[in-house]
Structure formats: structure tokens, C-alpha cells
């Protein structure tokens, strides 16, 4: 499969709308950190080691038979910066991998549900992404690949420390399970601070989806386990499952409360956001994320009926700077990006009405 397949603007499979909690949980991610015996970790290894590891791992993956997934392999160094950025924004590679100077690569399944990063912080980072709230199913997907790989690659494992990793925050199971949740009502009612504090005490971490420092951009939070040693995979997943279930319940309650107490104000906010997305000519990523969050809430609460949730999920990814530039076909200054972002959103969100109304948005220039 060529790289273009993974760079196109269509939403990856994990952005589909799926599951009973799809109104709140957007996607689930499982990551397993693994290393090979006999090689130094990427922090200290040399180019020769990096190359060998890359070869061993990608050979094993590309030779995989009986699996349902077809893998493609891409070398990081050979990729232009913008393409790397797009893969980061699609969550297929990490920002750290994108910056690697020694031999590093990524192996991606054609539906983008699996991506294995080679020579990131650890020799291997097996990552599986699924739509909706599917911790156990996603873990099973990662586990199957892990069990296949362990037969072909000698893992660095030690009885008492478990899977050995470069950073001791990953040692043991090497498992990081994350759930991406949209929590507009809890954010609006200013309850997130207390929730984040509680979760930290429970050994969980909360981050924004657009990376560090973007904490509640679009009211989307990523909740993950912090602890990897001393607990089994099952305990880690059960704990996260329980915590997220409670947060879902809290968010639903908060939404109901806002609906009861300020229905008009809420509807005004939601409809204004939709108007902004459909007609604005300049759009920063912050404004886009916040408008998309409001519209998403509007769809969940049945206030907005003519916009499919799947388009919203797609837009959440598309508004990022790499995608905007990919869409424009060239690198852009920040102010130019805001123009193209607005154009992109108009096209996406007016696509439905375009069929019925002859005069579409496309006749306007940016």
C-alpha cells in the first residue's frame, strides 16, 4: 500500500461511530511497549543496532501469515516533514518518532487499526485503535499481534520486572490503555479539575487529544492508565473501564442538568457554533475545536439533526495544521492556514445541502 493511502483525508476506521457510548467515548487505544534482547534502547543505541532492529521487526510483521491485516512499511527518514505531521495527527505515529534521526519506521495495517512503531522510545510500540469504547476488544487485537511477534522476536523480559522498557513508567506490562472522551458538560460545569485530581490519585492520566498543552481543546480528553507494574493487564483494563463508565455517567448527568436549567442558552450556543463552522471565513484551530465540540454535543442531544456524527469526527482530525496544509497542497503560514481551515470546514459541513441547493459554497474563494 502506498503512503498516499494513509495521508488522504478520509477518517480512519477508528473514527467511525460505534458502540453504545459513542456519544461520549470517541475511540479506544491500546499500546504495548516491547524491546528486543541484546540491543540497547533507542536512547543509547547506534545506527547499526537501529538498522538491525528495524529489519528484524519489519520482516516479522511483513511476513505475517494467517493474520487478517495487510501491513505497509514506511521509513521515517524518507518521509517529507509534512507527511510525517499528517501521520502524527492521525495518531498513527508519535511526535517523537516523527523526529527520529536514526533508523526508525512504522508498519501500518491498511485499515489503520494497527500501527507498530519501530525504534521510538522502545524498539517496538504496538498500537491498536478502535472506534468507541472497546477496551477488551482492542487489547485482544494488540495481544494477538504481540503473541505472534513473541514467537519471532526474542523480547527483553524478566520475571520480576516484566517487559523491560526504556522508561520505568512503562515497565511490567508495557500496557498503556487510553480512552478518548468528549466531556463538554463536565467542562462547562467546571467539574473537570476535580475529576482530573481524583483520576491522578487513582493512577490515571488525563491529557488533551491534540497533545500536551492542548488540554481541553475541543473538550476532548484522553484518559489512560499510568501504572504498568504491579497490576495485571486485566486489572489495568478493569480499572480504566470502571473509571470511564463513571465519567460517562457523570457527563450524562451534567448534560441533563444543563438541558433542564438553561435549554435556550445551550441551544443558542450550539446553533451559533454550527453557523460559524458553516459560514466563517477565518478559523483558528482553537475556535474550530470548540465549535465542533458544541455541534457534537448538539447532535448527541438531538438538537442538531442534519449533521452526521461521523463528519464531525473526521473534522476533529482535519482541522489540525498538517491536514490543512495537506488539503491546501502546500505549506502555509498560520494566517493562511486559518483561511484554508475555514474553507475545509465549510466544504465538509455544507456537503449535504450542496446536493439540494444548486449554488454551493465552492464558488466562493478562500
Amino acid at each position, binding site marked *: 500500500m502506498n503512503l498516499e493511502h494513509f495521508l488522504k483525508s478520509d477518517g480512519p476506521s477508528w473514527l467511525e461511530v460505534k458502540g453504545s457510548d459513542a456519544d461520549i467515548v470517541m475511540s479506544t487505544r491500546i499500546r504495548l511497549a516491547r524491546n528486543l534482547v541484546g540491543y540497547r534502547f533507542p536512547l*543509547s543505541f547506534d545506527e547499526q543496532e537501529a538498522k538491525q532492529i528495524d529489519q528484524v521487526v519489519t520482516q516479522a510483521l511483513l511476513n505475517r501469515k494467517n493474520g487478517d491485516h495487510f501491513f505497509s512499511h514506511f521509513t521515517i527518514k524518507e518521509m517529507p516533514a509534512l507527511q510525517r505531521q499528517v501521520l502524527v495527527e492521525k495518531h498513527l505515529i508519535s511526535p517523537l518518532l516523527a523526529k527520529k534521526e536514526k533508523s526508525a519506521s512504522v508498519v501500518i495495517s491498511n485499515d489503520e487499526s494497527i500501527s507498530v512503531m519501530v525504534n521510538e522510545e522502545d524498539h517496538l510500540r504496538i498500537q491498536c485503535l478502535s472506534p468507541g469504547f472497546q477496551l477488551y476488544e482492542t487489547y*485482544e487485537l494488540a495481544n494477538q499481534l504481540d503473541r505472534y511477534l513473541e514467537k519471532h522476536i526474542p523480547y*527483553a523480559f524478566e520475571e520480576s520486572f*516484566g517487559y523491560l522498557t526504556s522508561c*520505568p513508567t512503562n515497565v511490567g506490562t508495557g500496557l498503556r490503555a487510553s480512552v478518548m472522551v468528549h466531556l463538554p458538560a463536565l467542562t462547562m460545569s467546571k467539574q473537570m479539575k476535580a475529576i482530573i485530581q481524583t483520576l491522578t490519585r487513582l493512577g490515571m492520566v488525563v491529557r488533551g487529544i491534540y497533545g*500536551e498543552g492542548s488540554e481541553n481543546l475541543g473538550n476532548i480528553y484522553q484518559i489512560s492508565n499510568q501504572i504498568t*507494574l504491579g497490576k495485571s493487564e*486485566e*486489572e489495568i483494563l478493569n480499572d480504566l473501564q470502571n473509571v470511564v463508565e463513571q465519567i460517562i455517567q457523570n457527563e450524562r448527568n451534567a448534560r441533563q442538568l444543563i438541558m433542564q436549567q438553561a435549554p435556550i442558552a445551550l441551544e443558542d450556543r450550539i446553533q451559533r457554533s454550527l453557523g460559524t463552522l458553516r459560514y466563517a471565513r477565518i478559523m483558528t484551530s482553537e475556535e474550530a475545536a470548540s465549535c465542533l465540540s458544541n455541534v457534537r454535543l448538539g447532535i448527541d442531544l438531538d438538537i442538531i439533526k442534519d449533521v452526521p456524527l461521523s463528519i464531525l469526527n473526521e473534522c476533529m482530525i482535519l482541522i489540525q495544521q498538517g491536514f490543512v496544509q495537506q488539503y491546501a497542497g502546500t505549506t502555509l503560514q498560520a494566517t493562511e492556514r486559518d483561511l484554508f481551515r475555514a474553507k475545509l470546514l465549510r466544504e465538509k459541513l455544507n456537503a449535504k445541502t450542496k446536493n439540494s441547493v444548486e449554488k454551493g459554497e465552492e464558488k466562493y474563494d478562500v
Partner: protein
Amino acid sequence: MICEHCKTNQATVTVTQIINGQKSERHYCEVCAAQFHPFNVDFQNEEQFPLAQLVSNWFGLQIWKSETNEKQQSNTQTTTSCPGCGFTFRQFLNEGKLGCPKCYETFSSKLPQVLEKIQSGTKHNGKVPGSSKNNHLLLKKQIETTREQLQLAIVEERFEDAAKLRDEIKEMERKLEVGGVDTP
């Protein structure tokens, strides 16, 4: 005051560092402070010095001190650098990361006190390569939820459904015993 890291949120956490009797304070918001897990500190744009101090602070100064003392005392005794990569424990504290898998063995006496602070234990309790332990979480979870449905069906006197669910559970338990869904 505004968080020194993200420069947007209100700073609510104060990290006090005392180095050589000199006291300095840093102010972070809740979120950034939580992210500043000892090993995830993103200080790339800043000098290395505070990072090392921050890490040693988090571990408690004791490790930092004992490491320096030990170095002074046992210069001629055993070497503390890892035979696999040459990393010393001091280097690990500075970087927050280990150099190679062998480091775990080399520093096995000192690592547990670090791990205690950041993990829920110091002993691996999960999956082991090649074993089937913990490898059927999905199936186990499905059995659990089907059992709940079975209970509900019995309470609601839907006996036909209950019989069906009972058979499903039996089938899943059989799968679990023989290795189940987890074919390579």
C-alpha cells in the same frame, strides 16, 4: 499566576526545590504538574540542571544523596555502570530512562525504591511471553457480562433466554480452557 509550562492555565501547584541550600520555586497548573511525572518531563527547551533536580526531588533527596555518598565511598569497590550500555544510576536519574534491558539487572537493588514511587508495586503481575496467563481477557469479560444477563433473565423469568445464555457461557468456558479466541 500563570503556569510556567503551558502558559495558559492558572498555576495551582508549586514545586519547591532546594539545591545546595538554595531554594527555588516553580509554578504549574494541575494538568502540567500531573504530566510532570518524574520521567515524562518535557524540558527540552530548558537547561538540563533543573530536570535532574526535579527528578531527584520526586524520588526524595535520599536516593540522590545516597548515590553521591556511595560514589564517594565506593570508588574502588564495584563499578555501578551497566555492562550492556555503560549507563550509571546517576545517568538514569538524570535522563529518567535506562540505557538497555541489562540495566534492570545492573540496578536491580536500587530500582525498586524508584519504582515504588511511580508504580503500584515492584513485582510484575501480568502477562508472561509464551504463557496463556491473562491472554483471554476479552473472553473472560464476555463470560462475565453473559453471566449478568443470565441472572437478569432468571429474575425476569425469561427461562428460554436463560437456557440460551447458559449454553453460551458453557461454550465460552470451553473455549477459554482450550486456548479460545487467541489463535496467532
